[in-house]
């Protein structure tokens, strides 16, 4: 509130929302958001107030919360899920079992539709959504589940990827190798915000920990803000509201003074009439 009585409203970062006239709050929606792409920013008066390019980003409130979720938290979690998916595909990869290996390793049990090579851990964007169980091993899609034991999921027609050459029923070498690979340390892209070198299960656990820690933090912040709002509300109500009892007392006072004034007038009136009758 300025000295001349005019009122202005600013965001917590200092962008004007109202001064003389209301300012336009705008947002350009992105119709299709592909993996790894950031959505548009919310602008006030042409100045972006959310997103990485904002000169004056807002710090709290619903808009800031939604924007943080959309621009920071969700993409980071997505990156972690993509890394987990990539790690999973690489863990279950099949290598050339020939005496002199020449063929590249291929995705085994887990793959993505149409994959012809293993994903690079630095380029896993969108893997989390695309990962699937290889149809070659999925009985509901006409696959052969024995390939999980024998290997050769990646290319059933090519004996180079078959680990169990004799087809023996109790061959456990491949499965034991896979179990070992799951707990083997592998490298992850550090840009996902977690350890860059861990085993697959530890990495997935760390991702859950990260998410729940954010959850806890947000919940704490929210209950603090709630308490603040309740306090402010009671202060406001006390500052601008009235107490009915006090008002009632006032009214009774007024009534009484009105009544006594009236009584006084009546008395004066009767005094005059007595005087006039005596004359």
């Amino acid at each position, binding site marked *: 509130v300025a000295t001349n009585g005019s009122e202005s409203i600013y965001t917590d970062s200092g962008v004007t929302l109202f001064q003389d006239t209301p300012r336009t709050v705008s947002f350009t929606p992105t119709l299709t958001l592909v993996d790894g792409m950031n959505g548009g920013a919310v602008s006030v008066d042409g100045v972006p107030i959310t997103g990485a390019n904002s000169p004056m980003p807002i710090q709290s409130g619903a808009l800031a919360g939604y924007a943080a979720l959309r621009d920071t938290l969700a993409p980071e979690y997505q990156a972690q899920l993509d890394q987990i998916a990539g790690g999973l595909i690489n863990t279950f990869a099949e290598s050339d079992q020939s005496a002199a290996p020449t063929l590249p390793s291929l995705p085994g049990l887990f793959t993505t539709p149409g994959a012809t090579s293993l994903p690079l851990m630095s380029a896993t964007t969108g893997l989390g959504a695309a990962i699937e169980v290889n149809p070659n091993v999925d009985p509901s899609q006409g696959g052969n589940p024995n390939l999980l034991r024998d290997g050769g999921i990646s290319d059933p027609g090519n004996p180079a990827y078959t680990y169990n050459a*004799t087809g*023996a*029923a*109790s*061959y*456990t070498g491949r499965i*034991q190798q896979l*179990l070992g690979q799951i707990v083997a340390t592998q490298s992850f892209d550090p840009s996902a915000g977690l350890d860059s070198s861990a085993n697959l*299960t*530890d990495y*997935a*656990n*760390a*991702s*859950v*920990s*990260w*998410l*729940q*820690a954010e*959850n*806890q933090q947000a*919940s704490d912040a929210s209950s603090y803000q709630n308490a603040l709002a*309740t306090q402010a509300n*009671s202060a406001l*109500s*006390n*500052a*601008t*509201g*009235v*107490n*009915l*009892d*006090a*008002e*009632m*007392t*006032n009214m*009774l006072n007024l009534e009484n003074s009105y009544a006594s004034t009236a009584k006084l007038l009546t008395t004066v009136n009767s005094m005059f009439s007595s005087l006039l009758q005596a004359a």
Partner: protein
Amino acid sequence: MIAVGANFVSTNYLANSLVGPVMQAQSQLTNAMTEESTGQYANLGLQLGDQSGYELSLKEQVGQLQTLTTGNSVVSTGLSTAQSALSAIQKSAQTTLDNLTAWTPAGDSGPSLQNMGQSALESLIASANTTSGDQYVFGGINSASAPMADYSSTPASAAKTAIDQAFQTTFGVLPSDPGAANISASAMQSFLSGPFAALFQGASWSADWSSALSVNTSAEIAPGQTVTTSTNANQPGFQQLAQAYAMLTEFGGSALSGDARQAVATAASSLVSQGVDSMINVQAELGSTESAVTNANSSMSSQLTILQGQIGNLDAVNATATAAQISSLTNQIQMAYELTSRLQQLNLAQYLPIP
């Protein structure tokens, strides 16, 4: 004008002041009731925060240990089946050995040597084809097919054909041919230790007798502990016993001379006693695996207890504390309702006489 000070309370605030606490208490009450009925925190992730990953890894370990324990019971069943089959083989070998020691060519007018061999060979093959579940326990990793084929089948088995052929190549006649009576004991001896013995080793053994693979099955019985969990019908014990029983079956008939049959019986009894020794070794190996499995199970079960206790420390709520919380919350809410209705009564207008 009324002074607005620290003691001033607006009627609006007075009337609404309890709404917030009541709503808070109600939401706490629903949480507490969920916790009371499930025994776990209502919102586990929120409660544990960055400990969630630790909780998950503990649960993972529990799952792994439980899976291994289940798997171990399959392994144990397979092992004890194999042990009892080996005992049966050993027992029949012992019986054959006793009979062979008592046997003399002079006392045998009929095919008793041959019968002895036949029944022992049949019982050996039957024991070697023992299954546990639908797995052949002596098949090595090739557990889906019977390790030893029937010997006395029609048409003649590969093993019998190979023996007949070897005999004919050496002596020019079949064992059942009356001409075989001319074979001397020393010729018989050198045949048995030469061409005949070769049929029970290496490629001939795999081709004619056993479809087992020499690679044994292995299984992880505890985290990081992989042991060999079976044996296979390519062990020397099986070969020696099969060799002894086959020579009794084929050459124990009365077509051969007494001396030659004595040579057969002597060679057979030495092979059987070797076979018994080999079988004891195999049994000892399986026995040590069995005890490893038992040890792994007991150590995993104590680990499970520790882990489950740890998980309980993280995610379980104290039932008594929750029950107390529920009753105190209920009281609190009731009190708030009571106060709200009292506050509504607390109004100066109520106390003024209506003119």
